[in-house]
């Protein structure tokens, strides 16, 4: 658990064209494969550097760099200290016991 990075991924995909709508869907799928959605186009990932690389490769293949934007923020510190939430919060700790 220690060698995993807490990362915030935010994307902005231009949906002016049909292709844009498709890029948006694919970007959301790619992010969901690696982490969890915390807001409309914001995902939190807890990944190894290798997994992050794989995600970034996939995301860059999906996006149109002229029209779309992807930002990755590295959370430096334990989540309880660097993240404050207000209102609805569905974040799940995927490293805690998962019993459903």
């Amino acid at each position, binding site marked *: 658990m220690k060698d995993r990075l807490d990362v915030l991924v935010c994307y902005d995909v231009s949906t002016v064209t049909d292709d844009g709508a498709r890029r948006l869907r694919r970007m959301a799928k790619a992010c969901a*494969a690696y982490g969890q959605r915390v807001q409309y186009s914001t995902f939190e990932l807890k*990944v190894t550097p290798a997994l992050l690389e794989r995600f970034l490769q996939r995301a860059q293949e999906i996006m149109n760099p002229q029209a779309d934007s992807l930002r990755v923020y590295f959370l430096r510190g334990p989540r309880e200290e660097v993240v404050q939430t207000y209102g609805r919060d569905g974040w799940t700790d995927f490293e*805690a016991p998962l019993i459903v």
Partner: protein
Amino acid sequence: MTRQLLNTLYVGTEGAHARLENDTVRIELEGERLIAVPLHHLASIVLFGGCTASAALMMRCADDGRAFVLLDRNGRFRARIQGKTSGNCLLRKAHYDAHADPFATLALCRTFVAGKLQNARQVLLRGARDLDAAGRAEAAATVRLAAEAHAEGILRLPEAHTTDEVRGIEGAAAQAYFGAFDLLVTNGRTEFRFGGRSRRPPLDRANALMSFLYALWTNDCVSALEGVGLDPQFGFLHVLRPGRPALALDLVEEFRAVVLDRLALTLINRRQIDADDFEVREGGAVSLTDDGRKKVLGEYQKRKGIEVPHPLFVEKVPLGLLPHVQARLLARHLRGDLEAYPPYMP
């Protein structure tokens, strides 16, 4: 070099369906999403009876080498998905290789016994504190002597050069433990006097209760070992015998005092179990009645739901998952991912 312990997703809600969605596992109940977990977080998925899963999810787990295990409602192992490259045969080879290696075996024997003695010592010390609080200083002193014997045993373990010597240290500590055990049965319940450890058959109610709890937990450990792909019969500390789950018995040792004896003592001291939950058979053998068995099983299941801290996790873990947690740690150690096996020592 230590590597990460990946997580396990346990699905038990009646009617829940587990399916694969891209690279996540999605659990749904009546169309509602219960949880969606990216697969890279999971080393295994465990499904209990009453749940379903899609073939696509099973195939993906098999391809990835992720364990997919089916347990029945009682937690008993029923089946696991074996893929083309499940890695199971490699784990078993590592297991058997370690068993054939006297140094690896000795190290594991020392570790199992160290965990057992440390936990037994804690139970005794806590019992002594309770006796002090009840004004029974002499009894407390006796119990503390037994705890001291355990501390001495632990210190002698690194000097034990054969598994027989390790078993000798364990045996000496067990004598001290059971010698003092009767003092931990408080509340003046004479019908639960502990007259020394007796099994096959148990000769008093306390022994009958403990034997039953040991059997339940041993079964859970067998399921846990099978769930992670280890052979429950190939034990290190316990001698191999056909049909005997020696490795499960090894795994149980660290839990005996701190989980099972403590549960037995709680049931007795809080009067959650009565004398007439037991019957005496011909020859003096004591066992639980059907009603008594149901009662104990209910308390056992309830106890398994209680969350406890684990030295290696930030979050608490339900007690009932400890066998799975420790079995996975043992598998990782045998595979060479962990230098030593860390027993559960709360």
